[in-house]
């Protein structure tokens, strides 16, 4: 009897698996052809020397890249960018999301325009940034009027901060939307009960809002990392292939090695970047699982 049922179920399950695999075939094929197979090729490039990877050299390419000043500068800048940009965008996103939940003047307006920076074409943004921050730009004009020294916002160390600002300006809305959705899922009764127990605003935030918002914060964090790598577009259109030293990012390093067709260095850098992101996301996922358990 049991076997009879199993025999009936099994073909159905197999058919289900078949249909599923057929439906998913395009995305598997696409990812396989455009990402996975060439990624294996890159792994080979990174371990070999010469055109077409004729000689196996072990980790020598990795040592060379890790020791090169260009890579170190790019890595340091990228880490600095993430270390400053990520906390900033998360904090601002959380602040705006919390404020948007209150009935305040300006909340409706901000809600409506929140995602606008995300859709603006990069080139238009770059034009505005130039008018605002260039040597003879508006900001320096204001500084001069106040008797302060103008600065090289786009060519000096300050360009780092311009890029961080641009990143936060452009991507904060995404976080706010994610966090607002998370806030809306927190049951109102929890707050009412807490109030009956005499909890103040801070206690409510600390013991209700924050813990229940962790999944949303987690996704916001991951998408912020993904989006942080997109600032290369702005950096590239602003500064070209060799921008100010402070915004020479890992992406510039990759792109420039690409121009020089240095596949070995390129593959090494790409694989290092891949591993770092892989570990970072893995760590986050693991941490999130742990807080849930």
């Amino acid at each position, binding site marked *: 009897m049991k076997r009879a049922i199993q025999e009936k179920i099994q073909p159905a*399950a197999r058919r*289900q*698996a078949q249909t*599923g695999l*057929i*439906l*998913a*075939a*395009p*995305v*598997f094929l696409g990812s396989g*052809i*455009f*990402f*996975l*197979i*060439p*990624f294996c090729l*890159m792994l080979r490039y990174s371990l070999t020397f010469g055109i077409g990877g004729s000689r196996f050299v072990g980790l020598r390419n990795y040592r060379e890249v890790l020791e090169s000043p260009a890579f170190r500068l790019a890595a340091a800048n990228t880490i600095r960018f993430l270390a400053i940009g990520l906390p900033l965008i998360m904090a601002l996103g959380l*602040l*705006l999301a919390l*404020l948007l939940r*209150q*009935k*305040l*003047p*300006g909340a409706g307006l901000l809600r409506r325009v929140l*995602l*606008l*920076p995300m*859709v*603006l*074409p*990069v*080139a*238009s943004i*770059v*034009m*505005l940034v130039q008018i605002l921050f*260039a040597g003879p*730009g*508006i900001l320096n004009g204001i500084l001069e009027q106040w008797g302060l020294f*103008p600065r090289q916002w786009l060519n000096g160390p300050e360009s780092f901060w311009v890029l961080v600002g641009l990143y936060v*300006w452009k991507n904060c809305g995404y976080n706010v939307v*994610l966090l607002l959705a*998370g806030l809306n899922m927190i049951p109102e009764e929890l707050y009412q009960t807490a109030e009956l127990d005499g909890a103040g605003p801070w206690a409510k935030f600390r013991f209700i809002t924050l813990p229940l918002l962790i999944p949303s914060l987690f*996704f916001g964090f991951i998408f912020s990392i*993904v989006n942080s790598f*997109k600032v*290369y*577009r702005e950096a*590239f*259109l602003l500064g070209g292939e060799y921008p100010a030293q402070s915004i020479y990012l*890992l992406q510039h390093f990759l*792109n420039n090695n*690409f121009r020089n067709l240095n*596949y070995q260095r390129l593959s090494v850098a790409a694989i290092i*970047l891949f591993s770092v*992101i892989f570990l970072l*996301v893995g760590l986050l996922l693991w941490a999130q699982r742990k807080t849930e358990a």
Partner: protein
Amino acid sequence: MRRIPAMFCIPAAVILVAAALAILLPVCFTLLGSLMSPGEIEHYFGPVYEGTAEETVRLHLLPDRLSLESWYQVLLRRPDYLIKFWNSLLLCTAIVLGQLTVSCMGGFAFAKYSFPHKQVLYYILIILMLMPVQVTLVPNYIVLDWLGLLDRWACLVLPVALAPFGTFLMTQVFKSVPDELLDAARLDGASTGQQLVRIMIPAAQSGVVSLALLAFIDAWNMVEQPVTFLQDASRYPLSVFLASVNSENFPLSFACGVLALLPVLLLFLFFQKELVQGIEFSGLK
């Protein structure tokens, strides 16, 4: 609605309004700038691009005199801008259609079917999705070179249309469609394709629209791929071409900026709710 203490109300409102202005001002500036004559723009903002100027520019928001001269130049005198515009629109439409097809199929499979190693495969997709363009650019280049597709439109369409993000989003979206709907359709003998097109997609309409939007915006702002895959700069789409307008024919860059802004701005105004929903879906487990 929870309330914050009254003393915080004013600073809080100031923060909100400041944030809204920080977003709106640049957009208004671009829109208004396109209504200034090229001469006026040159006069007020020229120093930024001449580079040698000693004086700084001042904020000049309202046109002294409304003029359609910039628009006349961009739309009628210099057909290359308009041609770029239509080409980019075509390119993005192709990418969006491709991405929708692949993602709806893939999302359906991941949300409603079980097959071997589904979880592992899903994780691989997510990891690929999180990789920055710069990492995937090289693999893409190698493959496109093999296929002989470099320097053609297909090299911009294929990798982007097949990108895993859409499948991830549609999986999230389709998970929210109740199984009962699907079971009913299956009992009625609907084929897999019919289930997808007649049941799943209509039931998750806003999710599908939001994917189309996100894909379009991303494709419209594409910079890395054309710069890498196309040797011939004359084939660059509007997104990259605009940057060269900025430096070569600066007075027209406002009108060109608006031209580039228009499709995404209209989509944004009409489909904002779907856009917000799409982002919310991306944050669901």
